């Protein structure tokens, strides 16, 4: 096995040093009754070239990867500068462990500190952690944190929050005290409308903006409504590119911002690994889940960084920890950091504007097709719902088989009674030619 440095002779010499005659004797403490005593029924070892061929053969069956696509819904196709993937492949980054030994982990710690800072700047919040698994688990953790902070248990969540996020949050909270109340969106605007569920038992109002239907919520008004009953206002963001254009949740009064950072230079990768964002106000920092990196000095006054406030975490607090999470998404947070820094202030603004402009153009063109309309009237960022003349599944299937375009996501996957609606996402990677091709395809149905 080429990954094992020792030769058979060296192995035998080492066995002799520890007083054994064969490798089998290493396992004497395992009762023979539970030893396998046969070869595993898996493949013979493959050569490097054979592994590549097997993987390429499987990858080739993923025909969606090379098609023109207007899928979004929590995972977005954006261009990632070449240096992002190049830099994260430095051994020093990808083959290192969690930075528990700060003297030889300053590279990792410094980028985490930069990541935390950038997340704060973009979300408009005071503190951010070193990242969570993804947006969905970050939202589940926000539910739990809101319960801890307010000592209340009712979570009021909009149905226009990503349906898979809501499923995950339900899983996380099913054995606790949380009472989850769903509130609908307005049929005309697509925004959260009915806030009558908010009361003095409410721990948090949870909304997504831009929401799952692509609509930008009036966060300031929602924040006021949540605060009026003493609840925390939790904002979920699945499209991180939107921060470059939209008023930050922090500026609108959010208490916790959670989200998904995949759009910041991370490949779609069939849904993961991505990177969860978690930001809040300074006064809540000791209730936060996950790792935090902070400034520290050595005895000579040199500035460095360490993982800090770890008394919140499972390795110290065990069952009383703020979360069971142990890892962060280190390398993916690094990719996001490199992306944000490479794009910089101007790039993050320009890419956000391009997304909004291209989506607006596409929406306008589609709205002009006979039988098609844009379902919701609220302002949008880079996604919008289209209502077709027949079932969305049928429309999308047609466009896919006849025009080789994945035209969007049929909302019937997640919502009942919305058979003709589909969600279209347009990013800076969609050219005008592609948008026009989609419009032509829809027109030709």
């Amino acid at each position: 096995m080429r990954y094992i440095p020792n030769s058979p002779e060296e192995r035998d010499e080492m066995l002799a040093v520890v007083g054994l005659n064969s490798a089998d004797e290493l396992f004497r403490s395992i009762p023979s009754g539970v030893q396998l005593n046969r070869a595993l029924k898996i493949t013979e070892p493959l050569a490097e070239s054979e592994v590549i061929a097997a993987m390429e053969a499987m990858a080739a069956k993923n025909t969606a990867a090379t098609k023109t696509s207007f899928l979004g819904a929590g995972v977005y196709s954006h261009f990632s500068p070449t240096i992002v993937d190049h830099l994260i492949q430095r051994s020093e980054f990808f083959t290192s462990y969690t930075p528990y030994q700060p003297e030889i982990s300053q590279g990792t710690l410094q980028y985490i500190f930069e990541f935390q800072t950038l997340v704060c700047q973009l979300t408009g919040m005071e503190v951010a952690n070193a990242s969570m698994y993804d947006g969905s688990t970050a939202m589940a953790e926000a539910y739990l944190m809101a319960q801890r902070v307010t000592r209340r248990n009712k979570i009021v969540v909009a149905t226009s929050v990503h349906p898979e996020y809501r499923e995950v949050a339900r899983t996380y909270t099913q054995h606790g005290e949380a009472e989850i109340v769903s509130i609908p969106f307005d049929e005309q605007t697509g925004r959260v409308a009915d806030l009558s569920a908010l009361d003095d038992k409410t721990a948090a109002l949870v909304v997504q903006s831009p929401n799952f239907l692509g609509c930008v919520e009036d966060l300031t008004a929602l924040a006021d409504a949540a605060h009026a009953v003493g609840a925390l206002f939790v904002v979920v963001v699945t499209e991180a590119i939107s921060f470059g254009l939209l008023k930050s949740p922090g500026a609108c009064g959010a208490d916790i911002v959670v989200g998904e950072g995949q759009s910041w230079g991370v490949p779609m990768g069939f849904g993961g690994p991505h990177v969860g964002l978690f930001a809040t106000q300074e006064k809540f920092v000791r209730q936060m889940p996950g790792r935090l990196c902070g400034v520290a000095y050595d005895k000579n006054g040199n500035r460095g960084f360490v993982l800090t406030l770890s008394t919140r975490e499972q390795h110290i607090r065990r069952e009383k920890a703020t979360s069971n999470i142990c890892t962060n998404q280190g390398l993916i947070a690094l990719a996001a950091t490199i992306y944000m820094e490479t794009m910089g202030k101007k790039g993050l603004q320009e890419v956000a504007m391009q997304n909004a402009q291209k989506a607006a153009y596409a929406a306008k063109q589609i709205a002009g097709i006979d039988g098609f309309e844009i379902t919701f009237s609220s302002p949008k960022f880079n996604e919008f719902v289209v209502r077709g003349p027949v079932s969305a599944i049928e429309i999308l299937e047609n466009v896919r088989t006849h025009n080789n375009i994945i035209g969007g996501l049929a909302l019937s996957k997640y919502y009942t009674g919305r058979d003709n609606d589909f969600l279209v996402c347009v990013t800076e990677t969609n050219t005008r030619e592609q948008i026009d091709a989609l419009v032509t395809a829809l027109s030709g149905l």
Partner: protein
Amino acid sequence: MSITKVTQHPTQNEGLIFERSHGGRIGYRLPKLDVPVTDDILPAELRRDDDLDGVPEVSEVDVVRHFTRISTWNYSIDLGMYPLGSCTMKYNSRLNEKVARIGGFAGLHPLAPAEETQGALELIYRLQEDLCEITGLAGISLQPAAGAQGEMTGVMLIRAFLDQRDGEASKDRRVMLIPDSAHGTNPASAAVAGFSVKTIRSTAEGLTNMDHLHELCNEGGVAGLMLTNPNTVGIFETNIREICDTIHAAGGLVYMDGANMNALVGIARPGDMGVDVIHLNLHKTFSTPHGGGGPGCGPCLCSAELAPFLPTPRVEAETRPVRSVPQASYRLNYDYPHSIGRVKAFFGNFGMMVRALSYIYTHGAEGLKEATEAAVLNARYVSNKLSETYDKPYESDCMHEAIFSHKKQSKKGVVTLDIAKRLIDYGFHPMTVYFPLVVEGAMLIEPTESVGRADLDAFIEAMINIDREAQENPQLVIDAPHSTRIGRLDEATAARKPVLRWRTDMEATAKSA
């Protein structure tokens, strides 16, 4: 040991990117906007008005130098032995990185139609099959994002099973037994599933105390046991069958923390030991990179009895004849009404699954067994060679990791942390320190199979030298490390007055410091 440092060295003094920023610098170029511009695209009250204040402006060269410089401040597996016990820091192959980046995987949207994602579903299915064979368990979900989430999923399966089996009476069965040597995530995950924790004592031999186990089972209410095997002191729980039988007789189920599977792959299977549910860490046993703290991937495997409760969707295969030739196709099945639900959006950390399957293909059955043997032999070798220099708290043969304590050095005022920091001066990453908690001043050393004899000997020699220094010149060890860019950091002050982000006034403080 003193080195004259070049204090102005640019690589050693790289600041924060915010301190490098200069208005007007550009690091990107987008294609020209190719659609007609819509004016007033959003109402002003919904738009940002802070001009992204504080976000850096740097060139591409600035970014590349910045990250290349700070990367050199990290230790990494590719530099040398990374003997962190319980972490399994094995070689991360470039092949795995390459295949995970194939366009058909990396560029694939998770919500694309299943007909057009067959290769990804096939890969998940194949990995599921192999992991089931390796663990001897029938059910699997690759959805959990990391070990702690795999654990949470595992104990939630136990909870769902008991709720269904016992109905109302399940509420009287909420005790999770956890050894005192367990990872902190175990009790934290149990708490998420609504269990309370009772701690099982270990014996002087480092094994589960069977008398105490029986006693706790007799107290009743036992939902299950969370056990690491080999346990966190690196010893195989020889009584594993009896332990499982005892828990089962008490009406509970056994969850095994798979953190230490690198000692077992190809040799013994948890399913054959009586374990009901386990999580694996693909980032440990199956070599997906630790990435400086993530991403991980924590598949949860279970017995057929628990399988109905696994998260959905499940990836399944069906074989149908296509022009009379049987052909496999893969599908996502959401129809499991007793499922605990989703634990993560989409299908888990797919990119890690590609790497893990590449690892399995490269090793094959024989290579996986060889890796296990090499990992255990390396740890045994270290255990043997250091047994006269460092206190060995347990006599039993170790599996894939060797444990010592600072007992012999602490008399001179040199404690585990000092030994760990001094190892840095010898060019090694420290071992895991102060874990497990049952050994005072614990040093847990897991070489993995990726270290050759020459490097092991160098490590052993360094450990012996440090002991000599501790006896002859303890201050040298206490003040370590001496060779790093930065000395030991004042973590207490950092926690008392946390500074968790850069602000404009920080630059001045940094320069004056």
